[in-house]
């Protein structure tokens, strides 16, 4: 039983970081209806930003954290301007967006490898939270795991508050419901997109730093970010609560697979889950079903 709860806690902690990543995919999808695979690259850059702010510039942790998030937000916005905006203006089909996103993702990943100062090596974050776990009865919780959970939870709550209760949030919702109509109603859709990419990028930066602290930083963390994308699909692409729930569930399922079967299958289970979800309930857990107008 202890093992069960221990796994559950670990799963939720990982899942909450997935959630930070997944909402980025969902935000973009909800407005632009395509899977922004460059988001993974932004997350990776976030991890590197954090690492270099801490080690090279010796920023204190909160400042490094914030700077990494801001830099990632700017990076996400640059990608939007360079790789998507021209397509948007041309009303290109969604596929061109996906390919362009893939191009951006290939670019980012290899840029890191190609720059001699970074290179393909694994980098370990300096220790911020000591390894001494906090014990509650039989359960041991790493300080880092707790921090990961708390920081993610706070970010997500703020995000959902912004979406539900602020003017800009309402505009985002209206745009995601119907981009053409809201443009006609006077919503500045370009501004909405800027906001979306900044928010997604900001969260990506935070997720990157958390991820880097937990594991290490290396150019191919795309495998992990792909899993957060799967979580977004699992929850229902375009739905924020869906992305969060999907991520936490994926985190739990993964840790249980690793704990009770074999850690070898941890990555595989995500993809099997993806296909299963698409077959059984393609709109995901929280996605909406629509009948196309003809």
């Amino acid at each position, binding site marked *: 039983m202890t093992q069960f709860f221990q796994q559950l806690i670990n799963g939720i902690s990982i899942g909450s970081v997935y959630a930070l990543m997944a909402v980025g995919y969902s935000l973009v999808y909800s407005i632009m209806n395509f899977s922004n695979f460059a988001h993974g690259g932004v997350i990776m850059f976030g991890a590197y930003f954090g690492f270099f702010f801490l080690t090279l510039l010796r920023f204190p942790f909160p400042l490094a954290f914030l700077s990494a998030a801001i830099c990632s937000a700017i990076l996400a916005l640059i990608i939007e301007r360079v790789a998507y905006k021209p397509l948007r203006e041309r009303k290109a089909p969604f596929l061109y967006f996906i390919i362009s996103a893939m191009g951006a993702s*290939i670019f980012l990943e290899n840029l890191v*490898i190609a720059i001699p100062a970074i290179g393909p090596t694994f980098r370990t974050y300096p220790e911020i939270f000591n390894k001494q776990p906090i014990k509650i009865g039989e359960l041991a919780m790493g300080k880092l795991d707790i921090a990961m959970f708390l920081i993610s939870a706070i970010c997500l709550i703020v995000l959902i508050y912004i979406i539900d209760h602020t003017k800009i949030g309402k505009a985002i919702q209206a745009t995601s419901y119907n981009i053409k109509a809201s443009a006609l109603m006077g919503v500045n859709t370009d501004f909405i997109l800027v906001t979306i990419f900044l928010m997604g990028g900001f969260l990506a930066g935070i997720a990157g730093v958390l991820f880097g602290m937990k594991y290490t930083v290396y150019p191919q963390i795309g495998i992990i970010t792909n899993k957060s994308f799967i979580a977004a699909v699992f929850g229902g692409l375009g739905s924020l609560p869906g992305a969060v729930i999907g991520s936490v569930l994926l985190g739990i399922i993964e840790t249980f697979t690793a704990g009770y079967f074999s850690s070898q299958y941890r990555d*595989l289970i995500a993809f099997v889950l993806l*296909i299963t979800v698409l077959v059984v309930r393609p709109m995901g857990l929280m996605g909406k079903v629509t009948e196309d107008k003809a």
Partner: protein
Amino acid sequence: MGNEYILGIFTLAGINLMTVLGLSLLTGFTGLFSFGHAGFMAIGGYATALMTLNFHWPFIPSLMVGGLAAALVSAVLGKVTLKLKGDYFCIATLGFGEAVRLILDNVQTFGGARGWPGIPHYTNFWNVLGINIVAIIILANLIHSRHGRNMIAVREEELASQIVGINVFKYKMISLVISAAYAGIAGGMMGHYMTFLQPKMFSLVKSTELTIIVIFGGLGSISGSVLGALVLTSLPEILRAFSSWRLVFYGLAVIFIMISRPEGLMGGYELTPSSMKRLYRNIVSKRSKAVHSAGGDK
């Protein structure tokens, strides 16, 4: 730069081309996008190697088995995912491709992640050339028939296709299965060229690269796919001197293609003797009448 080296590049380009031809049918002519065809290559590659190594079959029949294996798997995948709309089919193929790679990583029978060495070197420039010529003829004949027209109709307007009695699901399925068979054969050729197989040869990046070649060549153009495969396979090889920066430029180039010439090299047109003649005539008449753009642009 000897002959060997150049033939080697062409052989690699030919292996890529085989998958690209299949993808051209799926993407260029049927309008479905896949990010999992490296998975079909892997299935074909391992199945072919199994036939030549364990059952000592000759190369060509083994390749057929590789193609068939990939086709069978694609039929199952298609059955469950082809009803999905737009983006979701794409995502499903992505999941499929990654799942294949991870399964091969974990199945120790074929060497797991370390790979499967000792595969005989059967693939050479000439058999690659021969197989590609046959593949192109099959594809061209298929496209210029009612079946091909039905696929193009599905690409253009699914609902209207249904209304004129085209079984959209069936034609998507045929297209997927043929493209997977091509990819499977390509995978077989690849294993018997490199003389080893490793799951990481069939990553998501490989799948993406293949789809990019099809788009680069121009959707709906077989000759475009051929050109695309030749250019985009040889270019990185030639740029190998720049090693790590190569893929950086590649990524940039992809974005640049998408935002600047999304219709690809050929823009849906074919390079055939008759189209060359037409282009020539257009240019001549353009000179005389000075009307707007010729040949390639409509």
